[in-house]
């Protein structure tokens, strides 16, 4: 089958890619656009390390055919990171030591950003629900949950101290 041109918005900028059918968003980001913050843990939708936001919703980019994001707004960790300093969610992950090897971190940060956009003060159940699709093999989930609570406080303008 012939390659096609797909256009979508990436970090506020329109991008155009020439792709073979059924190429995934993950593959386009990593291999064509060099945006390797989006990780590649399983290509089976099982680990969440490739989580990006599509129109603000967290999605496993390894399962998403690029045709499906045509005309939509994609946010990766590269586009979340400010030119200077860190996004409050990123800062909270640093402050709470919410990673060990760091491989799940990009997906976790994107997921946390989406959660807090929808629910600025999530309770533990909501955080647990949100994290259910993303695996961390090293740290355990406690410091990640702490980071989300910490970021929630920071983004609402109070309680900016680390949770612990």
């Amino acid at each position, binding site marked *: 089958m012939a390659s096609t041109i797909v256009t979508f918005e990436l970090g506020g900028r329109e991008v155009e890619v020439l792709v073979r059918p059924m190429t995934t968003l993950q593959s386009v980001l*990593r*291999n064509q656009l*060099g945006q*390797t*913050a*989006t*990780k*590649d*843990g*399983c*290509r*089976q939708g*099982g*680990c969440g*390390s490739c989580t990006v936001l599509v129109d603000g919703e967290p999605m496993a980019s390894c399962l998403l055919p690029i045709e499906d994001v045509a005309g939509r707004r994609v946010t*990766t*960790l*590269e586009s979340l*990171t400010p030119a200077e300093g*860190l996004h409050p969610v*990123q*800062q909270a*992950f*640093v402050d709470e*030591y919410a*990673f*060990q*090897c*760091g*491989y*799940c*971190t*990009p997906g976790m*940060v994107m997921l946390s950003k989406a959660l807090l956009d929808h629910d600025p003060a999530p309770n533990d159940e909501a955080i647990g629900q949100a994290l259910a699709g993303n*695996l*961390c*093999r*090293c740290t355990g989930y406690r410091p990640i949950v702490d980071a989300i609570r910490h970021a929630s406080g920071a983004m609402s303008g109070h309680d900016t101290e680390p949770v612990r």
Partner: protein
Amino acid sequence: MTAPLEVVGRSVERSDAVGHVTGRTRFAADRAFPGMLHLKMVRSPLHHARVRGIDLSEAERVPGFVRALTAADVPHNRYTILSLIGVEPEEEFVLAEDRVRFKGEAIVAIVAETEEAAMEAVAKVRLDLDELPAVFDVEEALKPGAPIVTHWGNNTFMYEGHPCRRVRLGDVEAAFARADHIVEGVYNSSPIEHAPLETTGCIAVPEGGRFTVYTNTQALYFSLDNTSIILQVPGNRLHFIGGTVGGGFGGKVDVIVEPIATLAAMKTGRPVRFVYSRSEEMQVSSTRSAWRIYLKDGVTADGRIIARKVTSYADSGAYSRQTPYALTKHAANAAGPYAIPNVSIDAYCVYTNRQPTSAMRGFGVTMASFALEVQMDRIAETVGLDPWSIRFLNAYRNGDMKPHRKLADDATLIETMQAAAALVGHELTAEQQAMTSAPRAGGDPGGR
């Protein structure tokens, strides 16, 4: 005047923290190079088979196919990772020669312009295999007539001519004869996969007669040195860059991807990427061994263990990798942190047709602790003591001789249990509270 402590006792930001939260940390497979090729492996679909032939004709016609590598292309194809610390014999193959010994064993490496082309060519390699009987259980593998996995005629790693690592202290049989209770148990565990989130992989890049290898190995110099041996090139032509590991847990110490990726880079003159798929990580990479551990303890009516006999089998799978070392560690720890005057340990590293096994967090000791501590609870039940008391009663102290003839000089079991009791709110007896790991007034209870 001493300088104030700047780091000890404080939380310090990790040096890699900003890299991790921004995604700027470069993991091995995040790199790309102009002209980079992709390596995928043709693997055995059978647990045990003779390799009669390999037909590459269809694979070679796949658009994007660059070349195939077989055993004949590997300068020193038979190796043993631990040869660097004197372990013999060389027994594992970079690429299979006349026989495959586990399902998933590498037979042909395919190098292609794209990952998709490599996968398609892999699917089009025709293997002519004669299936052989296979064995999957450690004790079945030691029975007469069992299929032989190794090239030396039996299914155990040989420790200085013995089929097991042995430890002997005192006389267990005499002590069993005078014990009030004999407590026996058999403990089994399954293989466990490390499941790092980042799969094993590397990229080998030719650079003017040298090769730079970006890898996520946990053992950079083990990988470099083994690659040097396998490819028969001096180490100064290899430049290994690592240190960023997306989860290892012992699963990335086996030197599997670097030698073949570097060889492919050598043969093609182009950068070559070899990164495991998730299914390779699960089904081909080493796991923790499956274990079977038999324990027999002689115990007095008041709960003192006077004899312990341990017979352990670790399933090494088809090749031994780091498992012989695991059994040595196991033998040094298999009596547990207890003062037992009569001990006999036989620890076998057994070959089967399962996926090879290797290092994983505390390997050799983790399953010993599982077996021993369940056994300790059963001894407590048998003599009518609570689980705390049986351990305080038998805990070793500094100055006690351990079964492998090392004097205990860092015993902390008693203090650890005292701290644990405080944490969980368990009330210890006054005697238990007063105990320490300090050397006993009367010396070693074994009278050694």
